[in-house]
């Protein structure tokens, strides 16, 4: 007992038995218990993770202890929270439990201005927060520098404008923004999401905080940017002794960086302890479902269709697409050629903006292109007339990333499904109804779902409906553009399972687009890597490892995937300079990030576009210096 108390005395943030609820219907009878009796502790200089699905109460917990839920009824109503020994909680909620009845009633002690001031002081000084959408948190009318100055002034840093500026630039450089002096004069919309996140962190550091709370800081970022951010967190902890409370739904992130972890579910902590310990010897089945969401996938060996005698189904030849953005224009697709064989899954990976979706929309003829051919069974889809196109649209279908955006909210599921068949009057009502119940059954939905509106389906169910919508025309080829990226982990696994099942049963061919490299490896036979509109490497799934990869960009991508304290990955990441991707002109587009080029300054890389050439092991690579 004594030991425990002593330990708590040292902890920086100490939350005990915290409850946060929201009134359901205004009657004061029904409550939604968003956070239910949570105890949590963060020690100085420690990185602590909270993991849980969306809606499990992670953000509510943080908002609660920061006093941001004060308007809520009843909000924070039970428990204690200490920051560095100072109690936070009297400042957080106006409600408390009645002594006798256990009913939640309004406290009669109102807030005092002194307390408010105290809370205001703590918030933003001792304890700082960064959120998921960094750019939303920066005022678009103020330059980066003005944000920094404001933050410095608020933390009562001494000195005039010039001194503050020097300090600010130092801080920006500290968080890895080497080019801080140039950034100083830019507006938030002119910088990338990753940079904005770092600006947020630099602003937070102005006050020399003791605790940094990061709520899903990397969810909106690419893996490569995420890896850099996590590295930064690690450095801040080591250098400044900053404690970090990291909230995430991504088990990889938590695994990579946190020392201790709390697993949250439905507002409760179901398991906690040393990260390694918890994730390896989990006790609660929910933790198991997080750790093992994709475990059973690995046991099914991906049947190799990589043998080249399989018939080619889709061939893309020199596809080009130019976009105008403001007064600049650039190639979103630059001479992309690839081939899909019947029954295989070809995965396309790359950072956001690399042109994956553009490729999908172009080959679906949902967008015009500036050149190239898309041959489906030898026939150029881009040149098909209206009638032929309608037939082709039955055979080539597409899944989109956001199922809720795809389903017209005013139509029933049945209407959505039958639409693709009704249009030509080729099928009778009976046949259509039969097919509807057939596809609903295939995607494991109840036939009664046909009468429901998308609005009252869960996200997973919605994505099943979009799959059913594609399957109803009995397609041969399915183009999946990030089909599971907006879903929770457990549902991702179910949908992936479903996709695999169809491939086996219906012999579908997939073009599977994703930025999630782990996911891709579960399903794909071959993998193509895109960078800035170009295909830079193509490899059979087996060769898609940090050792097997030929192109430096592929190596970077693979090494950036969070994994538990993998030293080799971290050292590979460290080889790459910490710069933003920019669209270069001519030569190899990757050269500003390429360690080989930066070392050798190979003139070929500057002048000549590296052609995609065959290498040993059945892959292809577009790099002047990569070996065969």
């Amino acid at each position, binding site marked *: 007992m004594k030991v425990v108390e002593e330990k708590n005395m040292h902890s920086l943030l100490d939350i005990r038995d915290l409850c946060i609820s929201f009134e359901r219907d205004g009657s004061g009878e029904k409550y939604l218990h968003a956070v239910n009796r949570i105890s949590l502790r963060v020690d100085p200089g420690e990185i602590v993770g909270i993991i849980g699905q969306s809606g499990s109460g992670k953000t509510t917990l943080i908002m609660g202890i920061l006093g941001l839920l004060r308007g809520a009824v009843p909000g924070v109503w039970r428990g204690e929270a200490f920051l560095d020994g100072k109690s936070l909680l009297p400042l957080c909620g106006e409600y408390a439990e009645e002594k006798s009845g256990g009913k939640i009633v309004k406290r009669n002690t109102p807030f005092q201005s002194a307390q408010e001031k105290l809370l205001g002081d703590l918030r933003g000084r001792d304890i700082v927060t960064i959120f998921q959408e960094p750019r939303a948190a920066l005022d678009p009318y103020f330059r980066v520098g003005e944000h920094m100055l404001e933050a410095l002034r608020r933390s009562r840093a001494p000195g005039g404008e010039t001194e503050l500026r020097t300090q600010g630039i130092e801080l920006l450089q500290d968080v890895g923004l080497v080019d801080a002096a140039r950034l100083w004069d830019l507006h938030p919309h002119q910088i990338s999401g990753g940079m904005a996140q770092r600006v947020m962190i630099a602003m937070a550091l102005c006050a020399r905080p003791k605790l940094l709370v990061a709520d899903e800081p990397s969810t909106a970022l690419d893996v490569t940017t995420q890896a850099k951010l996590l590295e930064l967190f690690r450095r801040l902890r080591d250098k400044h002794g900053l404690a970090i409370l990291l909230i995430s739904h991504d088990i990889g992130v938590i695994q990579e960086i946190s020392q201790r972890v709390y697993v949250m579910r439905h507002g409760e902590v179901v398991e906690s302890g040393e990260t390694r310990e918890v994730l390896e010897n989990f006790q609660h089945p929910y933790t198991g479902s997080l750790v093992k969401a994709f475990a059973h996938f690995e046991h099914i060996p991906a049947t190799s269709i990589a043998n080249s005698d399989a018939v080619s189904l889709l061939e893309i030849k020199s596809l080009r697409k130019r976009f105008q953005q403001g007064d600049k224009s650039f190639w979103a697709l630059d001479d992309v050629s690839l081939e899909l064989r019947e029954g295989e899954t070809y995965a396309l990976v790359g950072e956001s903006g690399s042109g994956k979706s553009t490729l999908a*929309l172009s080959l*679906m003829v*949902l967008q015009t292109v500036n050149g190239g051919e898309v041959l489906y069974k030898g026939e150029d889809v881009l040149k098909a007339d*209206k009638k032929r*196109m*309608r037939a082709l*649209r*039955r055979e080539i*279908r*597409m899944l*989109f990333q*956001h199922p*809720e*955006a*795809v*389903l*017209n*909210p*005013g*139509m029933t599921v049945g209407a959505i499904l039958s*639409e*693709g068949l009704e*249009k030509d009057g080729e099928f009778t009502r009976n046949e259509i109804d039969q097919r509807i119940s057939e596809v609903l059954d295939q995607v494991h939905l109840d036939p009664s779902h046909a009468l429901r509106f998308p609005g009252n389906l869960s996200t997973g169910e919605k994505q099943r409906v*979009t799959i059913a*919508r594609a399957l109803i*025309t009995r397609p041969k080829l399915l183009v999946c553009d990030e089909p599971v990226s907006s879903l929770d982990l457990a549902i991702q696994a179910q949908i992936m399972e479903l996709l695999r099942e169809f491939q086996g049963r219906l012999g579908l061919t997939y073009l599977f687009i994703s930025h999630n490299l782990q996911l891709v490896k579960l399903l794909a036979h071959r993998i193509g890597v895109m960078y800035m509109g170009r295909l830079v490497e193509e490899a059979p799934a087996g060769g898609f490892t940090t050792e097997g990869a030929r192109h430096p960009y592929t190596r970077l991508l693979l090494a950036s995937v969070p994994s538990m304290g993998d030293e080799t990955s971290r050292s590979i990441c460290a080889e790459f300079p910490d710069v933003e991707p920019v669209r270069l002109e001519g030569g190899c587009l990757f050269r500003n990030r390429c360690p080989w080029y930066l070392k050798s300054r190979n003139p070929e890389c500057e002048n000549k576009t590296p052609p995609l050439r065959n290498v040993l092991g059945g892959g292809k690579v577009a790099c002047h210096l990569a070996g065969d």
Partner: protein
Amino acid sequence: MISPFLRILGKPGGYRMLLGGLLVFLLALVTITGTYWTRFKPDEMDFEHPLVPPKSAWLTRLTTTADGRKALMESHQNAAPSTSSSSVTEEGDDLLGALKEEEHPPTEASTAKVEFSALRDHGHVLGTDKNGRDMIALLVAGARSCFLPGLVACAVALGIGVPLGLFAGFYEGRWRMFARIFNGTLLSMPRMVLILVVICVLEPNVYITMAVLGATLIPRVSELIATRVRILSGMGFILAAKEGGLGDFRILTRHLFWYQNRAVFFIQFSLIMAESILTETTLSYLQFGTKPPDVSWGNIIEGSRLTFFSGQYWITFFPAVAIIMAILGFFYLGDGLNARLAYREGR
């Protein structure tokens, strides 16, 4: 039976929607069924009973002051001889009887009694106008003549505005350019002036006038629809519909119009109806709209201009109430629908 109404009441804009809907429903009912249950025809002139007040005494008492009642009686005494001189004298026992009774100056209390009992059986529940036309028949005929021109205005405004908006929003490019020029031209012409010019140049026909009114509302409708369609076109389900092989026509009619913009359509329908009733009555009052012998609420009021201050309030009062109810009805309906839509889209 009741519960769906109660549910609507609970929703944002529910009261307005229900009240407006009720008024519009009544108006439509009267328009459609009116000819079956009215006792008189609107062009039937009861020469024996011109300017008789509403039948029920309390209605008269309720709406006129003591002075007014006196004036009413006097006017009646004045009007009666003039009518009897102009109409055939040997008919109308009732009226003669009444006049006879009035020859003996009665007490104040008995006057009203005598007056109303005398007129009890003429059958004009809401009284008659100066030509002896039945007010109820006139009001019913007026309802028709505000509904039909309103529908003409809606047909023009929505029939052209909606497709124009859909095309301009969906295809951008040339259609958008065309819509911009077309709408700009229409918007640059003041509505009333345009209507008056058309009336002067063409024959003054209320349907033509309403068509012109509808035309002046095209810009509003088409811009509204085009803006919405432009936003919707970028959304996933339009892309998905194209992916599913749907032709442009089906995407426009089904997804963009029926599933996404039909509420806007009904809202605009209600608002344009309200506006066109207002315009129609105004024009008729100014004698540019419906011309007698055709009846409209506006020209009933116009016809009562001279009698209003001499105490024959009812000829002005009832059409005015009808106009207000009709306009309020459509306006509330549109406004309630709008609030409901805003709420649904806000979620």
